[in-house]
């Protein structure tokens, strides 16, 4: 299940003089949900468009999947067609065979709660329904890889949950899913998250393992304490409250750290434990 379906190496995208993405690399494996997290205009959409072959780029994009489903950020539906006609059209251009087309359309209308709206013209529908329909259109041909650009933005909770259920089901079926998002809650549900800022990859994290613990030290002599931490190879940052030392397990690490300080003759006024969630970690990394 660790077979790579998309590999992006040293990807750079420019629009005229504006460099949107620079030296970006990552891979997507079968049966995983990979999040591409960044603020608006950070370059996420450009990366996805490069994968879909919609923009010129430098670098290497390899996709071993024979079918890819794509959901753009913007509403991309035919306003003068009905819900069902839109789905049928996207099924046709993605070469869904005639004999399974009807069944596939019916199945998606049901699973995304669109059955009652199938004869409604898209131009008369609300934003949330259009997003649901776009999601259905992107998976109508049961693609091996799914590339989703902000699929859940501005959606109500039940709709988000419904789409997440399908995404997770697709993951269980071994599909690779690349999901660009600026929402931390969505990123938290991904197996891995690539952080992007100003078109540059900042970090790659696993939300399950990223929940960090830190020991907050408040020594009387900051410089001496920092020199000791450097000597023992601790990673730390200096904040207003003191020195925050990154550790795997704070409860176990505190006695050792205090002992080390005592041996160096550094008195510590106070210690504390800080536990950080994904949001705090990400916002610290992205600044």
């Amino acid at each position, binding site marked *: 299940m660790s077979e790579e379906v998309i590999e992006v190496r040293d990807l750079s995208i420019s629009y005229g003089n504006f460099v949107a993405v620079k030296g970006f690399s990552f891979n997507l494996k079968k049966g995983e949900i990979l999040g591409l997290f960044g603020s608006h*205009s950070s370059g996420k959409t450009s990366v996805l468009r490069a994968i879909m072959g919609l*923009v010129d780029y430098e670098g290497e994009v390899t996709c071993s999947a024979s079918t890819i489903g794509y959901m*753009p950020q913007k509403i991309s539906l*035919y306003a003068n067609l009905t819900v069902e006609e839109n789905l049928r059209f996207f099924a046709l251009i993605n070469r869904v065979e005639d004999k399974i087309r009807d069944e596939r359309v019916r199945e998606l209308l049901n699973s995304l709660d669109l059955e009652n709206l199938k004869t409604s013209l898209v131009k008369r529908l609300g934003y949330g329904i259009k997003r649901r329909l776009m999601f259905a259109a992107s998976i109508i041909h049961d693609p091996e890889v799914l590339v989703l650009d902000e699929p859940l933005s501005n959606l109500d909770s039940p709709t988000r949950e419904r789409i997440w259920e399908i995404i997770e089901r697709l993951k269980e079926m071994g599909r690779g899913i690349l999901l660009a998002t600026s929402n931390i809650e969505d990123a938290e549900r991904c197996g891995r998250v690539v952080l992007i800022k100003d078109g540059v990859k900042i970090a790659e994290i696993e939300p399950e393992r990223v929940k960090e613990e830190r020991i907050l030290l408040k020594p009387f002599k900051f410089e001496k304490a920092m020199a000791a931490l450097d000597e023992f190879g601790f990673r730390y940052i200096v904040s207003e409250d003191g020195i925050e030392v990154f550790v795997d397990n704070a409860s176990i690490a505190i006695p050792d750290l205090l002992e080390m300080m005592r041996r160096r003759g550094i008195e510590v006024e106070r210690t504390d434990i800080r536990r950080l969630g994904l949001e705090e970690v990400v916002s610290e990394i992205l600044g």
Partner: protein
Amino acid sequence: MGFTEMKGVFRKEIREARRDGRLSLILFASTLVLLVAYLFSFSSQPIVAVVEEDGEFPRLSSLSEAVKLRYFVATEKEALEMLRNGKVAAVVCFKSHGVEIFAENSYTGLEAVKAIYSKLSEKIKTTYIPSKSNLSYLLVLGVIGQGIALLLASTAISREKEEGTLEMLLSSKLPVFDFISAKFFAVSILSIIAVSIGAVILILTISPVYQNYTYLTRVYAEILLLEFLVIMASAGVGLIFSVALSRDEGILAAMIFLLANVILSFHSFYPFYLVKNIAIFSYFLPLLQAKIAFGLVEIEGANILSNLLMLILYTLISILIALIIFKKREKSFVGGVNP
């Protein structure tokens, strides 16, 4: 190339067009314009040319009172040329052996002329000579058809680009050729339907009654074929605008192209006679090709094959250009900084 995909895109286009209120309004308005244009073209008065052959002008003043007498020319050949070019509706020839009249059967002034020249009935030549005065109004069909085709085609792809659906299409398995071809056929067929409605109403209701129906059928068939080819050629040109420009720019370019066609094609104004250098370019305008062919359609036995081929070639080349531009610009359609 997949026929199923092409058919699917075509059906989608027709469905969308059917539900587009603005488009329906344009089609309805253009049919109205067509009918008004036809009515005007039939309201013109017939004009008679008189040939002086032996200097005899019996009761000429009575003739000028009875009908609209406009020209005096020296030879029968010259007069018949005027009739053929639609400048006059009938020719009265005074000859040593009597008076002859050349006219279409639809010529309404015949009885008035007969009343003046009692012996005329024996000399009348009832040979049907179609004139441009009756055929040239059909060029209006071409203008309307060309306008509709240009308007539809010039926004066909830019609309998808601006509404975001092109992003979905380009990321699908749909070949570009199928996409462009389906757009072309949809635009052409919609425009042809719009023009055909007007043409059928015209032919069935207000068209003049001719004796020679076989001949008339050929004339109408050739004219409609020319109109349809003008529409198809214009659809091809419109697609080039749509691929290369934004929606608004495409509409503007289409209207300029239409205007150039109209100005250079209508017989009332021939600027290319004045500026010889642009004459050659005029022949690359679909409507002018049709206009040239119209001049031949009315002459029995004349061949319009070269004009038809020119329009077909024009259509194919314009689709090819649209395809090439599309392929070249494919990667820039959805690019740009994300808002």
